[in-house]
């Protein structure tokens, strides 16, 4: 377990040390540089504006869909679940790529405008575009949070408010919204933290117009090899993330006694929409989901079959789209020329190895915390959960700085990616395992002890078996992340350790263009879908198995 402490704390301490390291002399000069630089504050204010816009969009979109899903008698509720799930599966960078392909100056829509002799002025490189891309990926968090909260609201609380004379408005503002508030706040913090940590969308849609947010400023600073400034900016971002995390924990704790027990009343009265409103809502939602999920996916899919070179459709406006403009060429290059095999295999290898190790480490930490209570196990749990507050890009920078000097010189090897993945994945696995182990009966372990079983015997024979659901879902969730993850592998890869995320992000700069990016994106989406569906089927299967064995 000492190694867990080492891989988590060593890079962070190194980052701290680096922030004072001015060419071998320890001083505060980098802090002075960073905090007197107006660009830092501009990046910070841009980040805050972006967070505010994303928060607003995700709250409105996710909240409205959740209310329709739970509180109305809308006939096509499954449709909402399916499309929300699809949005979650598509990484925000792919939304950004789709947006560029469809709405960009040389995008599909501009070509339609050209044919119609209309002027096209939409600028895809803007705050609103970046905010929309991030929101489309993150509104499912709000949707799931509000949906679960709404399902918990006891209908009798609302009924009781009605019988004492509440008007509908009074009921909404004094009873329903206050009861939904904890879900809005907790999902809001998640959205804020994720927007703060996002690099790829800002790099894709904001950097080209010279607008910086904190992550792109850090990356820029790293590119100019100003390591101490990078370290200071990184620590500043860690500080902001930790503040967000602590405030969200504080609010969660404050709201603990305001939590609702599951309603015993299963007849959930819904808002009766009637036939006309049902059809109207179906039309509105169909258009909405077409625009926010189907259209981006179709754009990506379509673009993945486009030829890159020698076609007038691309080199000049005015040519109609012909079948011979389409080809399997992008996929053939990816598969036949082997462009995708190494990154795909690397993602499998690094993700798989890190996921197995993380799941094992997490299971031991949770076991020690639950059944060997003491200051050491509590400290171990806290340290291993620390990275949950740190954005991926900062984890990558800390690893890069820490693991390139002796005695731990892993830079340029696959080990550095795997170690950083382990640091990133372990807290996620801990969360999954903890949710399962909370329901375990302590008496089982006490019974095993009275029968003379050793600690390891209990861990392997009883505990691992009892937490298998959490262990497996934790493994799959982190394994899935490794296919979509960009900042860590982008900063730590070398020619031989390129991952799928790196290929997705970087392939367009290798003269392949957005068409090849789209082909990689389609593969990433398909892999994500397969793993996610696998996760759902496995969870269902395990539930069924448990029901039949209990």
């Amino acid at each position, binding site marked *: 377990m000492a190694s867990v402490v080492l891989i988590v704390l060593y890079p962070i301490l190194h980052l701290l040390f680096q922030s004072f390291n001015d060419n071998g002399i320890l001083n505060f000069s980098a802090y002075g540089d960073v905090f007197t630089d107006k660009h830092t504050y501009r990046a910070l204010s841009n980040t805050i504006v972006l967070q505010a816009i994303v928060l607003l969009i995700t709250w409105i979109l996710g909240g409205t869909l959740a209310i329709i899903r739970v509180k109305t008698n809308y006939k096509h509720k499954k449709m909402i679940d399916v499309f929300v799930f699809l949005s979650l599966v598509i990484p925000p960078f792919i939304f950004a790529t789709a947006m560029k392909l469809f709405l960009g100056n040389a995008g599909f829509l501009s070509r339609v405008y050209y044919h119609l002799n209309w002027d096209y002025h939409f600028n895809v490189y803007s705050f609103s575009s970046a905010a929309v891309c991030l929101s489309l990926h993150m509104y499912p968090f709000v949707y799931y949070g509000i949906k679960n909260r709404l399902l918990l609201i*006891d209908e*009798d*609380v609302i*009924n*009781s*408010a*009605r*019988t*004492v*004379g*509440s*008007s509908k408005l*009074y009921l909404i503002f*004094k*009873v329903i919204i*206050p*009861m939904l*508030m904890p879900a809005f706040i907790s999902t809001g913090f998640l959205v804020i933290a994720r927007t703060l940590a996002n690099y790829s969308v800002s790099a894709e849609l904001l950097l080209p117009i010279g607008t910086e947010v904190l992550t792109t400023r850090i990356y820029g600073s790293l590119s100019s090899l100003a390591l101490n400034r990078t370290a200071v900016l990184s620590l500043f971002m860690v500080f902001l993330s930790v503040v967000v995390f602590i405030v969200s924990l504080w609010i969660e704790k404050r709201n603990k*006694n*305001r*939590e*609702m*027990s599951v*309603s*015993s*009343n299963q*007849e959930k009265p819904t808002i009766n929409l009637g036939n006309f409103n049902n059809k109207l809502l179906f039309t509105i939602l169909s258009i909405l989901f077409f625009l926010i999920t189907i259209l981006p996916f179709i754009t990506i899919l379509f673009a993945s079959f486009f030829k890159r070179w020698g076609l007038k459709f691309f080199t000049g406006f005015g040519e109609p789209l012909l079948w011979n403009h389409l080809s399997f060429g992008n996929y053939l290059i990816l598969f036949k020329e082997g462009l995708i095999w190494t990154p795909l295999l690397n993602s499998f290898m690094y993700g798989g190895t890190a996921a197995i190790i993380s799941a094992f480490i997490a299971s031991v930490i949770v076991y020690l915390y639950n059944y060997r209570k003491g200051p050491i196990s509590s400290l171990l749990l806290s340290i291993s959960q620390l990275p949950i507050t740190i954005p991926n890009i900062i984890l990558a920078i800390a690893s890069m700085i820490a693991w390139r000097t002796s005695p731990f010189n892993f830079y340029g090897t696959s080990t550095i990616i795997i170690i950083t993945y382990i640091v990133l994945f372990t807290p996620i696995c801990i969360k999954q395992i903890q949710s399962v182990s909370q329901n375990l009966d302590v008496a089982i372990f006490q019974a095993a002890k009275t029968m003379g079983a050793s600690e390891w015997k209990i861990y392997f024979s009883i505990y691992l078996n009892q937490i298998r659901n959490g262990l497996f879902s934790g493994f799959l969730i982190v394994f899935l992340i490794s296919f979509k993850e960009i900042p860590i592998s982008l900063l730590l890869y070398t020619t031989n350790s390129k991952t799928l995320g790196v290929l997705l992000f970087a392939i367009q700069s290798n003269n392949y263009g957005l068409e090849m990016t789209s082909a990689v994106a389609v593969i990433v989406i398909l892999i994500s879908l397969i793993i996610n569906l696998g996760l759902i089927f496995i969870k269902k299967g395990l539930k069924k198995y448990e029901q039949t064995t209990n």
Partner: protein
Amino acid sequence: MNKLLINNISVKYDNNSGYILEDFSLEVHDQEFLVILGSSGCGKSTLLKSISGLVSPAKGEIIYNNNCYFDSSKSLNTPPEKRNMGYCFQNYALCPHMNVYRNLAFPLKVKKYRKAGIKSKVCEMLNFIDMARYKSKLPNTLSGGEKQRVALGRALIYDPTLLLLDEPLANLDANLKRDLSKSIRKIHDEFKVTTIYVTHDQLEAFELADRIAIMQEGKIIQIGTPKDIYDSPKNIFVAKFIGRNNILKFDASLYKLLGIHSNKKYLAVRPKDIILSDMGLESKITDIKYLGNYYELSLDYNNQMVYIFIDSIDDYKINDIVYFNIQKYVILND
């Protein structure tokens, strides 16, 4: 006169299901404590929801205090917030984000009471329900009994003209139930509010009720004072539902013993009304149970099981042939 009249209401939740209540009628007297007693799913809670307006019947009429709240023929349906009825839910239904004080003050705020009036009324109610020391606590930090007291207080604080209580003691343990049922009756007597109390627990019903209405499958089977119901059950369902009863099928020996002849098939006899004697109906002892103050003997009479209570079993053992007489009985409708 705060009389409640329910005339021929029919209720169903959706078009695909049958009626929960069908042509249901009931009259509740002014200041009466009426207990609706029935097993789960018989429609008791639906009845309360219909009275309060939370559920709209498909047809019928609900009149209270000479005001018509629901009349399907006139398409009249007063919403629940306009009916001024107190409703206490089985699961308390307290707002989880409001402390005890704010939960009690909530109905008064809704009804736009002045601040000073709210304060004095809430303090008065806090003392009445003995919750003053918990006024700042959130519902989730209270015990079941405490939550129930707050829920009752909230249902009463705005002086409703009718109090509807939906299994308010169902989630509590036996001792707490006894204490709280006394408090509920005390509240009724003090506030003099017409009360309809729904339960499946006959002990609660007998402790609290002025009258009991027995419900089965959306219909009232029998209504009367607890003594009427206990002594004269109308049919097999009520006889089986209320207290311990032997339901015996008439045969020639029974006619002869009781000296009657009836076109009805069954009679009900309480175990305490059967005595063992030297003569009477012949039966065999199949089981003996010790139940604390007395013994319960199971007798096989012509393949019908008969239970009787006796103080001592010194003279009896299993498989003995014994004779019994019936002191009191009720002839049942089928």
